[in-house]
């Protein structure tokens, strides 16, 4: 049994809005081991980003979070602000989707990188600057000394995302949470960022939680995959197992929606019919039922619980299977 770095148990998140409560995440559980890359996959609005943000208490005040988030032996849910601050950016750090807006437009790159180093490490300004230079070099930003004195708008999207990664790695964190890190970038730039994340895991041994709606990205990088649907875990398995033997009809649908060369000749890309359900109310049945070709009476009357159908492969479906 390997040690667990991050253990999320029964995490539920509810937002109180003017139109009533929205159940964004329902009893979500995750574990992350050191050096592991965990992919969380799902459509927009399935609760994957909310899950990640709730780990560090970064959700707005309208959110009510229950369950447990155990990091390295300490509970983070309900932890004091000062304790959370020591974990944020130091032990667990974030890379967000939008490199264009995630950096502060009015401060130089160097200052934004220095800032996190000085916040968490007991170093002088000069040492922080030297470390910042080292970090920009680590994420392969050309001419790093000059870049430190530039503003975010002077950098391309890919470069800004590299700066975000450099900032996230500044204090040598144990976990890097990358929330759609390549979604806003050109395809050629995406590959570079994914290569960089792979390199980070290999060279620094940082565990990575990779949130994406792109199964291709997961196949490329992750060790283990969690598929989320409507705030719940639909399926979880090691990456090869999931791609070889997908069990949940939703996962199979997602895989069918990935374009493949050659496959296009015999027809259109498959799409999953219907829409993601509203999360205003937790349904008393399988949330995927109205889009599912396998749905029957049971799907419409009970909520499927997660169960292991193959070795180390769990699925929340009454009718799992590859076809």
């Amino acid at each position, binding site marked *: 049994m390997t040690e667990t770095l991050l253990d999320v148990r029964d995490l539920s998140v509810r937002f109180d809005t003017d139109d009533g409560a929205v159940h964004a995440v329902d009893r979500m559980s995750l574990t992350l081991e050191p050096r592991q890359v965990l992919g969380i996959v799902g459509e927009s609005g399935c609760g994957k980003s909310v899950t990640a943000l709730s780990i560090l208490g970064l959700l707005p005040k309208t959110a009510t979070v229950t369950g447990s988030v155990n990091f390295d032996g300490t509970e983070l849910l309900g932890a004091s602000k000062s304790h959370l601050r020591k974990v944020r950016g130091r032990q667990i750090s974030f890379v967000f989707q939008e490199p264009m807006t995630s950096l502060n437009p009015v401060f130089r790159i160097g200052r934004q990188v220095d800032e996190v180093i000085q916040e968490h490490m007991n170093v002088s300004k000069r040492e922080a600057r030297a470390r910042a230079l080292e970090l920009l070099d680590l994420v392969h930003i050309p001419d790093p000394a000059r870049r430190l004195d530039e503003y975010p708008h002077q950098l391309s999207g890919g470069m800004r995302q590299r700066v975000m990664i450099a*900032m996230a790695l500044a204090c040598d964190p144990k976990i890097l949470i990358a929330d759609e890190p390549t979604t806003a970038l050109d395809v050629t730039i995406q590959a570079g960022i994914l290569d960089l994340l792979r390199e980070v895991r290999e060279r620094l041994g940082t565990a990575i939680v990779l949130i994406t709606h792109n199964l291709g990205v997961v196949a490329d990088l992750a060790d283990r995959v969690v598929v989320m649907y409507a705030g719940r875990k639909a399926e979880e398995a090691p990456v090869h197992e999931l791609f070889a033997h997908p069990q949940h009809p939703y996962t199979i649908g997602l895989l069918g929606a990935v374009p493949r060369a050659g496959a296009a000749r015999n027809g259109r890309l498959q799409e999953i019919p219907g829409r993601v359900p509203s999360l205003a109310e937790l349904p008393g049945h399988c949330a995927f039922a109205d889009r599912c070709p396998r749905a029957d009476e049971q799907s419409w009357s009970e909520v499927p619980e997660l169960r292991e159908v193959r070795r180390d492969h769990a699925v929340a479906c009454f009718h799992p299977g590859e076809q």
Partner: protein
Amino acid sequence: MGAFILRKAGAALIVVFLASVLVFVGVRAIPGDPALAYAAEDRDPKVLADIREKYGLDDPLPVQYVRWVGLALQGDLGTDTRGLPVAETIVTRIPLTLELTFLAMLIGTVIGITAGVIAAVRRGKASDYAATSVALLGLSVPHFWLGLLMIIVFAVNLNWLPASGYVPFREDPVENLKHMLMPAIVLGTGLSAVLMRQMRSAMLDSLGADYVRTARAKGLSEWSIVGRHALRNSLITVTTVIGLQLGALISGAVVTEQIFGIAGFGRLTVDSIAQRDYALLQGVVLVVAVGYVIVNLLVDVAYSLINPRIRVAGTSN
């Protein structure tokens, strides 16, 4: 940065030129004969003709304009109906108004920005509602009413502050500030209310921005998230508003000086209009226009210091 300022200064010069033309034409468009104003009770055509001759009033307008500007550039704005040099009168009155508007601006920005930040950070709480309501009140209250109310309360009833008058700062700094405090508060109230509302909405925008989420995820303290990351971005909007509010401040000074019996620039403007003193009016309005342009130039420079995107856009091309 140097090129940026130079470009802005060039634009400012053009504005000053246009303003001087407007002032000149505007004053002449006012009904009434300037010669009559100078001559006062004397309606003898011979006297009026002499006056026209002496002041060059019978020359074509462009000639008069060029002469006026030429002299103005040398610091000579002509003489008023009392025979006093306009430039000298203006120079003696300007410090009063400068001090008043400076203090009003100081009070307005400090209160407005602080209240706006607090309201935004404590959005939806009692302090937010309190600040927003007080700001609405501050916006609705007319200068003269607030001024009279303050005089009644603090000068007449409590006897804490003098009701009117002015003591030069060099003579007695404490007395000077005592005299200036109430007028500055009256004049600064409107500004602080406007700034509070602007600051609140700018801060709410900034606090919801992605870079604030990044700052939070970096483990920074709330103080540095609000006071550095969010504030700096919000100041971009608010600086622009301060520049725009300057016009309101100058016209507000006219009323405020009237209420508190301060013989400043505002009083001078009112008097010059009332007495149809063309040379004086021309000079006064020109100086206000130039002052307005200078302050806006300063605002532009401050704006570019706060917002690096402006600076680069200006220099890279």
